[in-house]
């Protein structure tokens, strides 16, 4: 199926039951009202969304439907329904369970992973999903000499940079050999970057594969009309039985107010990323259901531990005590986030340290710690961004945090930057520039954030994200050990210990874990948000 370029293309889904056109009222005194009415004389009244077809309001036009070429959650929401990976996150958790692979074995040294594929699975284009197809997927991303490597780019292929080789042992067995033990490997396979695409479709469409996707998921691709819709329909041959929905239509609606208006007017059945201010309205309205789910997200302040007052641990702890995090999540974020306790979000249930309590809001203790450290009235520079992926409401949050810090006697100056400019200043390190900087991360494995941003060997000079230069040999050791261990319980123990140490050392100020939200119309059933923030529509029904 080719992508229709014209927005006038034929309708892909069953025609809706026509609703009789309402005769518009005669022109009123309002100029605008009169004109709108006059123009609409010939137009049918907007119909309700047709039964069996779920219309989802997305926050933006997708960039591509090639799972190996994209990085945005907005695209993942579509992709997870078209494709499947070898493994996936079990519903409601971030724990890995079988998907296209029935089972797997890991060698004792953690270097060799062997997956047994399910029999009889085929792609939407009819080609068999076998070991060769899996090998093609990873070689396309990782091998610069692969004939289809130029159908990229593949920005997240480093998720699999530990892979030394991947081979088809027999038609239903795939073997990955790693260069070094890398425990997050399975978790990365469950991420969209690990979804399996049809080699035949890549061969047929080459660099346009992202607009002509073919996978083995519960829905198959129908059409993508630019800036209007992406349509997918039930895959009758899905290995686990076809979904109940006939089709799903994803509409890009970038403006949050317009998304709300479409939801209210019945133009969409599901909307994601509801503005906090509108949640209460939907909760009170019986025509809608509100869904919330905490995810693997952390909003924090990087503190510059290399120089200035923040080099003293007492000052960093004072900052953690001084900030009223409950007020931030309740008032600034209208309850769309929870107070964070440490560097690992609670969504990683298996690896989360339940014993940790967030730093309490205690300005007196903060003042005492500042006095003890001799840094009362210290002058601090605070980097704030105007917006950005996962940053929530950074300007308002920055102002509230500044006010809290001023209250304990610190002299805080805010510098605000546009997101890309902000990253360009923060990622190379805070030295010589700032004492505090906002940051947010959303990851899929408890290893990712601390390994990239808290190890002493992950400073920007060494290609990491430890922009505050935190260094603790014990944390380094725990993270290296956790990465090498193939025993999940052992990994969990190491991560919990790491969280306790990092909380005490306070290289960051831990602020909030974002809760993703969505609103569905009351006609929609079986809808659940996932901690992964993916949107899984296989079991959704609509009456």
């Amino acid at each position: 199926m080719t992508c229709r370029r014209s927005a006038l293309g034929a309708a892909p889904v069953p025609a809706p039951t026509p609703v009789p056109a309402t005769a518009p009222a005669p022109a009123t005194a309002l100029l605008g009202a009169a004109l709108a009415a006059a123009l609409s004389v010939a137009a049918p009244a907007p119909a309700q969304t047709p039964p069996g077809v779920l219309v989802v309001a997305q926050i933006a036009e997708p960039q591509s439907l090639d799972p190996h070429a994209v990085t945005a959650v907005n695209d993942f929401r579509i992709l997870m329904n078209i494709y499947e990976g070898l493994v996936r996150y079990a519903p409601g958790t971030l724990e890995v369970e079988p998907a296209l692979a029935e089972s797997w074995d890991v060698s004792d040294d953690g270097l060799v992973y062997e997956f047994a594929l399910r029999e009889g699975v085929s792609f939407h284009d009819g080609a068999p999903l076998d070991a060769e197809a899996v090998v093609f997927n990873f070689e396309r991303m990782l091998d610069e000499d692969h004939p289809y490597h130029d159908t990229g780019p593949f920005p997240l292929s480093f998720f699999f940079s530990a892979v030394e080789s991947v081979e088809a042992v027999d038609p239903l067995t795939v073997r990955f050999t790693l260069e070094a033990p890398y425990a997050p490997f399975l978790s990365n396979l469950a991420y969209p970057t690990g979804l399996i695409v049809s080699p035949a479709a890549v061969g047929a469409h080459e660099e346009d594969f992202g607009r002509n996707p073919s996978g083995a998921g519960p829905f198959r691709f129908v059409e993508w009309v630019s800036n209007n819709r992406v349509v997918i329909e039930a895959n009758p041959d899905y290995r686990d039985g076809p979904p109940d929905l006939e089709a799903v239509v994803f509409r890009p609606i970038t403006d949050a107010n317009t998304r709300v208006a479409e939801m209210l007017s019945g133009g969409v059945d599901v909307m994601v990323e509801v503005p906090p201010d509108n949640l209460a309205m939907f909760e009170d309205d019986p025509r809608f259901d509100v869904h919330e789910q905490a995810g693997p997200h952390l909003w924090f302040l990087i503190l510059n531990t290399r120089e200035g007052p923040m080099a003293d641990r007492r000052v960093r702890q004072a900052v953690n005590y001084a900030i009223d995090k409950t007020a931030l999540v309740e008032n600034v974020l209208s309850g769309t986030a929870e107070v964070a306790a440490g560097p690992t979000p609670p969504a990683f249930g298996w690896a989360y340290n339940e014993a940790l309590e967030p730093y309490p809001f205690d300005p007196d203790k903060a003042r005492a710690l500042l006095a003890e450290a001799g840094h009362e009235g210290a002058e601090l520079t605070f980097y704030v961004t105007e917006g950005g992926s996962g940053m929530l409401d950074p300007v308002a949050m920055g102002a509230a945090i500044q006010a809290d810090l001023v209250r304990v006697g610190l002299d805080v100056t805010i510098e605000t930057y546009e997101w890309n400019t902000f990253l360009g200043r923060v990622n190379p390190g805070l030295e010589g520039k700032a004492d505090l900087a906002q940051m947010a991360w959303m990851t899929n494995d408890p290893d990712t954030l601390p390994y990239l941003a808290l190890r002493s060997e992950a400073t920007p000079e060494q290609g990491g994200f430890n922009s505050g230069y935190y260094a603790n040999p014990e944390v380094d050791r725990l993270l290296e050990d956790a990465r090498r261990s193939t025993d999940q319980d052992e990994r969990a123990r190491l991560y919990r210990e790491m969280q306790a140490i990092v909380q005490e050392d306070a290289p960051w100020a831990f602020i909030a874990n974002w809760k993703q939200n969505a609103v569905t119309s009351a006609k929609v059933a079986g809808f659940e948000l996932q901690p992964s923030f993916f949107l899984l529509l296989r079991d959704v029904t609509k009456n």
Partner: protein
Amino acid sequence: MGAYILKRLALTVPILVGLSIVVFAMMALIPGDPATAILGAYATPENVERLNRQLGLDRPLVAQYFTWAGNLLQGDMGRSFALNRPVADEVFERFGATLVLAGAALVLASALGLLAGIISAVRQFGWTDRALTLLVLVGVSTPSFWLGLLLIMLFAVELRWLPASGMFAIYGGGDLPDLLAHLAMPAVTLAVVAAGVIARLTRTAMLEVLRQDCISTARAKGVAERRVIYVHAFKAALVSVIPLIGVQAGFVLGGAVYVETVFQWPGVGRMLVDAIARRDLLLVQGGVLVVAAFYVLFNLLADVAQTLVDPRLR
């Protein structure tokens, strides 16, 4: 006349070349780069370098510019890396949508503005004139994004007569009535300010013309008052109104960015905003170039139209 048009067209070439160099340099000078924008939190120096290599952004800027210009001469505007499709497809599709919106708004604004201006002038200081003047003042002062949201609340959410957003229905539709239903609110929203400005100027121009001797002569000759106003006076007033409508066309194109955002109209204004945020260099280049080319063309058309209406300029 023909020579004049040719000369004006030839002049646009250096304008567009200069513009493309400025845009290219500006995109290079502003902080942040495409690879960082794509990778976000994962933008380690190593990952950025690898991605830049895949995107062909590791070559010197001047070389990149000449490659782009060379391809352009062969009709290839490159590929948007953020949208994974040819720049030309995206730009012309989005520009088409903007033209539909801006065109409808301009026609609406002209019709309403001229009518209101003429009525005001004829009934100078009467209550119709005062009511219209007040309405015009309200129109000119209303922020378009706010008016847009109000219209959505009334016509889409409360009355459910019109779709809240988009250009075509997502199922069924796709025909002219469907387009008009989607176009109604954004076109009105966009037209309101321009209509106010045109009404004010038409009123002034008409008042000036109505005081002239030729009008007294026409009336003395017994020409019907309707004819005096709508034919004799209006034609004379049009000469000073047409260039203003040309200027308003530019404002309407610019104002379309807000309206496109509120109504999710898939136009070129929103495309450029997104492309700049993503540092999608080729899409910005292509978009700016096409918009500029049409802008120059519209100005030329307005000048030619004025020459045709006003015999004194020939």
